[in-house]
């Protein structure tokens, strides 16, 4: 297995708070990593550091052995680390179609795309195919601002996926949607991304989602990783049960 991402002694502090406290981890190609932890445990901080939104206080990050510490979001995206957001980041005044077309244009047109038209028939067709794959084609002409949370989440992920990412980081892909929608969203996303050969890391609070989709679980607590194992082992871990599940999940844990 080739390592796609490696973090070495990663620290991040915000004043007195350690959001990342000596994180050492290696992620291999093709894994589906589920990241769990209570609010404030450092999950999103980790995602933010890998995707270039935050620079670590100290420590190193490597992507295929290339040092990416201190990259900005644009550089991270260009080398193939893309992300979606807990609160979907869309172009709110554009339609679903416009949003994805712009994402595709940026991914396909190089550094100074000021001449070639964005909207070609061929690209529009592919755009509709992707919308269909994410099962949001029926919202094609709806303004993003007016979309439901579930559709916004899917569009956000679809936009992140068109830059041919090697690694996609999904920050709480199912938060804020109904329980009934959660599994269908994850099914759609995982199926779509499997076709692209992407290593997935997703932050999640729902342990049923974790045990169904993750191949490996990282449990965060207080900026540290307290468990790194297969889902069934991680969820059975005493520390995880105490610090993660005990505080965040009210339903009984499956398995």
């Amino acid at each position: 297995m080739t390592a796609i991402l490696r973090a070495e002694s990663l620290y991040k502090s915000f004043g007195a708070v350690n959001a990342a406290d000596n994180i050492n981890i290696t992620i291999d190609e093709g894994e589906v990593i589920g990241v769990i932890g209570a609010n404030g445990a450092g999950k999103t901080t980790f995602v933010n550091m890998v995707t270039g939104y935050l620079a670590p206080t100290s420590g190193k990050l490597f992507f295929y052995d290339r040092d990416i510490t201190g990259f900005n979001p644009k550089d991270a995206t260009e080398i193939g680390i893309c992300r979606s957001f807990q609160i979907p980041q869309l172009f709110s005044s554009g339609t679903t179609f416009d949003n994805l077309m712009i994402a595709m244009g940026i991914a396909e047109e190089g550094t100074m795309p000021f001449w070639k038209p964005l909207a070609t028939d061929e690209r529009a067709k592919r755009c509709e195919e992707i919308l269909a794959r994410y099962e949001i084609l029926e919202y094609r002409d709806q303004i993003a601002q007016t979309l439901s949370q579930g559709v916004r989440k899917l569009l956000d992920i679809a936009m992140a996926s068109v830059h041919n990412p090697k690694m996609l980081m999904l920050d709480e892909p199912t938060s804020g949607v109904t329980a009934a929608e959660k599994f269908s969203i994850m099914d759609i996303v995982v199926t779509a991304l499997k076709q692209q050969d992407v290593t997935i890391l997703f932050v999640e609070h729902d342990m049923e989602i974790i045990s169904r989709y993750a191949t490996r679980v990282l449990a965060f607590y207080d900026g540290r990783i307290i468990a790194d194992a297969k889902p069934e082992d991680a969820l059975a871990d005493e520390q995880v049960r105490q610090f993660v599940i005990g505080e965040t999940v009210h339903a009984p844990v499956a398995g």
Partner: protein
Amino acid sequence: MSPAFRSNLLQIGLPVILALGLFMPDWAIFLGIISLAKGLVVLGLMLLWRTGLVSFGQGLFYGAGAYMVGILPQYLPITDALLLVLISAVAAGFLAFALGFLLRRYREIFFAMLCLAFSMIFFGILVKSESLGSTDGFNVVETSYLGFVPEEPIVMQRMLYITAAVVAWFACLFVNRYLGSTMGRLSRAIKDNELRVEYLGFSAKRAVHFKIVIAGTMAGAGGALAAIAIGHVDPEMVWWIQSGEFVFVTILSGVGNVIAPLLGSVVFEILRTFAIEYAPQAWQFVVGGCLLAVIMFLPGGLWSLIERSKEGKDDGNSSR
């Protein structure tokens, strides 16, 4: 308004209207040239406006273009109007490129004020420089048109009108093409969500920088045309009131189409000319009242009138 109608309007309608301008009465030709010249500046402001940026210092690039026309023939044997306009535009573009490295880092009121600050520094330099004519400015040499030097002033004016019309048309075609490209479409995207643009792998700052350069280049071309038409340059072209006027015309025009700035500019010049003619003591009052009316009743600017009437005819089937 359908895309086909839009492109017909731009590729056929606009040149026809510009050509008809040649048959304007003598007194109106000068007005036409100035309208087109300032329309070019407003076209650039429109690009920035669509990105959520307002420049209160566009007079800087307008003035830079104008001063290039004044200075260049003193050192180089260039008198051809079109060539002067192109060189001035490129020079203003370079200035915008240099300042853009700082400007592109700011948004909203900070961007507007930084533009204003740069323009007022330039104003200060001009006023204090004896060699640049200080507050009086200086006269522009007589220009030629492809080797032809018209004897009659009115022939000269018409030649200049043709030059201005050609430059304005090409600018509109370019901007229209640009607006349909990925980077052009990023305008609204940057206004909506800059973070997302970065996370799609594009530098929003670079996109903004590019817009600053295009806007500066066109403002330079406009300034050069105005300088040739007036035959004189002075620091008032750089002053903040001039920059404010460009923003005024942008609001009046609306940003819905590349033709809107030219239309708005023509309407503004006519409005001001008549207001000064009939209410010399209160023309600002008339012009200000009109702006107020536009903001209240036509928030999309004059262009929204055309858009509305066309949409009515399309029976609601038009796409944007």
